[in-house]
């Protein structure tokens, strides 16, 4: 149970070079030859088979088997297509005829398969595949014949006739319900427009006027098809008209194929080389286009439409988001100036500035940034943000609050643990345990913390850790004897802190002094509460007796939001810790040693050497966290469902779109979330480009 992050980063992140260099170049040939089935691989297969058998026995062979079968089929089909495509293009150079035939067969097969899938072809009895097989055979045969004669003179008429025949096949196969009654006007317009557009594009792309006519041929074919089928009324025409609609574009395409330059070996090589990148890329790009890009565009489109996507309603959905008091409410903003948090924050910032200037007088700078000055200022600004975000309410501000608090605290705690654990005993165990929540799902974490926050009726025993502690504090501060014991214990701690503060001032360690004084103030406040008004969960009844009182962590706005954020901080601090720890270990020791030799204190080394060195990594952690926090959903959904003023955008989007079936508003909320993340995207790209350069 150890985290070996230093080596881990090197191998997986920064570069593979160390691994790869271990592979001697002589090894290449052996690897290329492939491996035989060894005892080792057989052993592994047996282990996997055993595991599968165990799962099948335990969870039910049926469901396990169907699952595995589905996976195997999906993987098998993808692998077959990929390997097949590679093998196909392997033939380009050595066997031009085979290659052409295969390409023709595939195109014919797919064309008729798609047409059949759209139900425009006649019913054939054994319906699946048959039309596709016929189409594949037909176009395959055409291409086979075409690749026989090398001279253009012989090829041109052959191509025109062959492709026209393929067009005729489609026309004859088309069901009567789609026979078009041609509209000649639209047909001509379509053809001309198609020819001009595609011809123009190919001319511009290659900057070659001669290519325009070839492009124009393809464009005319496409335009003819669109004009003939799209511009006409379907189902009222005759077979003849269907033939006109397909044979002519077939002939046009044939003309284009026939005009193609002779397939010299050089050209074949070029085709082979260029095709390769597309074989490797197309599967991934298909997934990205179909699963990400097109849905994203459609979501943007839907966000301007009504709840069923039927009518265009302009910006109404967005207006609804920003005028609804539940999502965007600024009414209470004046309360901000009277809130306690605000004044504490202002005081802290003031203290930080004073400390910075005072320390700066010694080092002859106008402002000294170190633990003693930057600490209070950072905490002050953090509290200031919390003060603002707890007074202005609404879903959007909740989201911003989440981002500010979770990103800041998770990074800070992660950094603190990374620094504290560095070179200390049991470092790896400590880091592992902090990191452990990363393995738990957000849903699971939400449930775990509901048990932490649970509040039983006051007369019962508290079974949630936090309320139990709270009630226990209340019991101490209401009992005469234990209240004094607590005060004395705190007093001892206070004396210790005072000594520390003194030492900090004497050795001019600003951070130490500031932290001890802050803690001292806290201890003093606790002593005051214990002896004075009391502390913890209790209420005094009129009879003078006291009774336990719990905190409803999840139900009391606005700070129930903070209690939800704790869950995400609990999860993400480990993430920040692992990455920052690796970065700290990567800081060259020469730098820190040199600084120490020059007389820098530990804290000066940390603030002036370590922090600037790991600043880029902190940037990575922060951007990653912002993205994660921005779309927080599971925790809120499981713990409060967005009730009690804890709604966030992602949960609102889910409720609107999938609970109320208001797809327009749901899409608009998703777009808001997307826009919020766009800046992070830009930062990521910039960073990547810089890393490349």
């Amino acid at each position, binding site marked *: *149970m150890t985290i070996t992050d230093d080596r*881990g980063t090197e191998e997986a992140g920064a*570069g*593979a*070079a160390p*691994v790869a*260099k271990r592979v001697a170049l002589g090894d290449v*040939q052996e690897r*290329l030859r492939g491996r035989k089935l060894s005892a080792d691989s057989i052993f592994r297969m047996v282990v996997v088979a055993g595991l599968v058998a165990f799962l099948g026995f335990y969870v039910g062979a049926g*469901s*396990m088997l169907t699952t595995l079968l589905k*996976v195997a089929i*999906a993987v098998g089909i*993808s*692998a077959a297509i*990929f390997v097949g495509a590679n093998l196909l293009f392997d033939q380009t150079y050595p066997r031009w005829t085979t290659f052409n035939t295969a390409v023709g067969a595939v195109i014919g097969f797919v064309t008729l398969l798609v047409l059949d899938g759209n139900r425009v072809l006649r019913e054939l009895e054994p319906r699946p595949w048959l039309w596709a097989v016929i189409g594949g055979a037909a176009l395959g045969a055409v291409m086979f014949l075409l690749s026989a004669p090398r001279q253009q003179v012989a090829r041109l008429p052959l191509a025109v006739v062959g492709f026209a025949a393929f067009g005729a096949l489609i026309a004859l196969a088309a069901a009567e319900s789609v026979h078009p009654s041609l509209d000649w006007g639209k047909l001509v317009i379509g053809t001309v427009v198609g020819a001009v557009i595609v011809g123009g594009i190919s001319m511009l792309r290659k900057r070659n006027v001669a290519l325009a006519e070839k492009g124009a041929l393809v464009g005319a074919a496409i335009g003819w098809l*669109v004009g003939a089928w799209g511009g006409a009324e379907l189902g009222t025409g005759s077979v003849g008209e269907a033939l006109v609609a397909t044979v002519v574009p077939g002939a046009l395409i044939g003309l284009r194929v026939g005009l193609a330059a002779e397939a010299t070996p050089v050209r074949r090589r070029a085709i082979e080389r260029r095709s*390769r*990148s597309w074989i*490797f*890329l197309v599967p991934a790009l298909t997934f*990205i286009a179909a*699963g*990400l890009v097109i*849905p*994203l565009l*459609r*979501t943007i489109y839907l966000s301007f439409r009504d709840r069923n996507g039927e009518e265009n309603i302009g910006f109404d959905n967005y207006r609804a988001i920003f005028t609804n008091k539940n999502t965007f409410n600024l009414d209470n903003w004046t309360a901000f100036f009277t809130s306690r948090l605000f004044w504490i924050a202002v005081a802290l910032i003031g203290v930080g500035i004073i400390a910075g200037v005072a320390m700066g007088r010694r080092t002859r700078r106008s402002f000294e940034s170190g633990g003693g000055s930057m600490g209070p200022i950072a905490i002050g600004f953090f509290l200031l943000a919390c003060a603002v975000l707890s007074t202005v309410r609404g879903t959007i501000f909740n989201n911003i609050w989440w981002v500010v608090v979770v990103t800041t605290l998770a990074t800070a705690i992660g950094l603190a*643990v990374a620094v*504290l*654990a560095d070179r*200390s005993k049991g470092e790896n165990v400590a880091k*592992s345990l*902090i990191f*452990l929540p990363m393995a*738990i*799902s*957000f849903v*699971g974490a939400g*449930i775990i913390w*509901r*048990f*932490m926050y649970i509040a*039983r009726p006051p007369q019962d025993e508290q*079974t949630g850790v936090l309320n139990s502690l709270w009630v226990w504090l209340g019991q101490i501060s209401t009992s005469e004897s234990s209240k004094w014991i607590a005060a004395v214990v705190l007093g001892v701690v206070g004396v210790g802190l005072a000594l520390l503060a003194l030492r900090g001032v004497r050795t001019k360690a600003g951070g130490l002094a500031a932290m001890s004084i802050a803690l001292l103030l806290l201890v003093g406040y606790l002593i005051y509460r214990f002896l004075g008004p009391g502390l913890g969960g209790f209420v005094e009844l009129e009879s003078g007796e006291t009774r336990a009182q719990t905190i409803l962590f999840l139900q009391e706005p606005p700070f129930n939001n903070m209690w939800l954020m704790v869950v995400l901080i609990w999860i993400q601090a480990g993430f920040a810790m692992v990455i920052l720890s690796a970065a700290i270990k990567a800081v060259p020791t020469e730098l820190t040693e040199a600084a120490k030799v020059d007389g820098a204190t530990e804290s000066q080394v940390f603030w002036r050497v370590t922090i600037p060195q790991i600043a880029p990594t902190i940037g*990575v952690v922060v951007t990653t966290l912002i993205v994660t926090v*921005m779309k927080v959903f*599971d925790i809120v959904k499981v713990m409060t469902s967005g009730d009690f003023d804890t709604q966030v955008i*992602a949960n609102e989007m889910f409720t609107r*779109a*999938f609970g109320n079936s208001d*797809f327009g508003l749901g*899409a608009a909320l*998703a777009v808001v*979330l*997307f826009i919020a*993340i766009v800046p992070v*995207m830009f930062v990521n*790209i910039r960073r990547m480009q810089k*890393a490349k350069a």
Partner: protein
Amino acid sequence: MTTALVDPSAPKTSNTGGVYRFLRSIPTWVLWLLVIVWCVPTLGLLVNSFRGRDAQRASGWWSIFTGDFDGYTLDNYREVLAAGAQGGMKQGLVNSLAISLPATIIPIAIAAFAAYAFAWIDFKGREGLFIGTVALLAIPTQVALIPLLQMFVRGAHLTIPGIDKTVTLFPDLDLAGSTTAVWLTHASFAMPFAIFLLHNYISSLPRDLFEAARIDGADHFKIFYRLVLPLSVPVLAAFAIFQFLWTWNDYLIALVMVGANPDALPATVKIASQAGEFGRLEHLLTAGAFLQAAVPLAVFFLLQRFFVRGILAGSVKG
């Protein structure tokens, strides 16, 4: 004493030396305090999952430290696992597996091809396409959910504007409410990250390797599966573990895609819906949550090196 003199800030007398030694150990104490705080929530869940309903309500789980061992039982687990009971976690775990396995294997294979092409095949527009792909890394899942769900429910049809004819782009394969819909969605969303991660690694393999292979007459396909794949095992494993845990722990996509079909719900959705009725079944919730977390925790403890690597590799600049 002689060692203490080496440190110039160390005081001269042994008496105060003890105090300062204590002070210097404070960071360690703070660290372990944090560690304990971090462990408490999980520990509480684990202990409570072995306690019956009455025991859970009568006292806090920390009573185990005071020697109170009453009411410990395996009943919670038995009840939660049983098919047909409120939950039926057994089916939930199978469904989780049915989602996570394909959602891990398929993106790996496909992304590895693409990563290789981006790294080692020269073609026009490579840079732009790669940046476009990586730009999609941070896109929130939410922006694609509505159209994807609609596509799985009734296929995708495009009505061409102007001529008013409809073309089917994606047939209605009756995927709504099936685990297939979930893993297809996961696979799409994993693609940019997978390509980015694998590209980082594959592009840093030494160029000599490829040149040597070229001289031996190997083509891209052969280089890919004989050289690049075996050499990339560490990063493939890191991504596989990351993606497996990600999909195993996912809630949102599963809820949207199969939320309406009780037979296909994965473990996360099951425990979340149990949490909805918190009061009545909370004693079972502990066991359910722990069963759901058992697989990721096992991965965490057994394969931690790869686990950490996967997370690191995605974020530390490469």
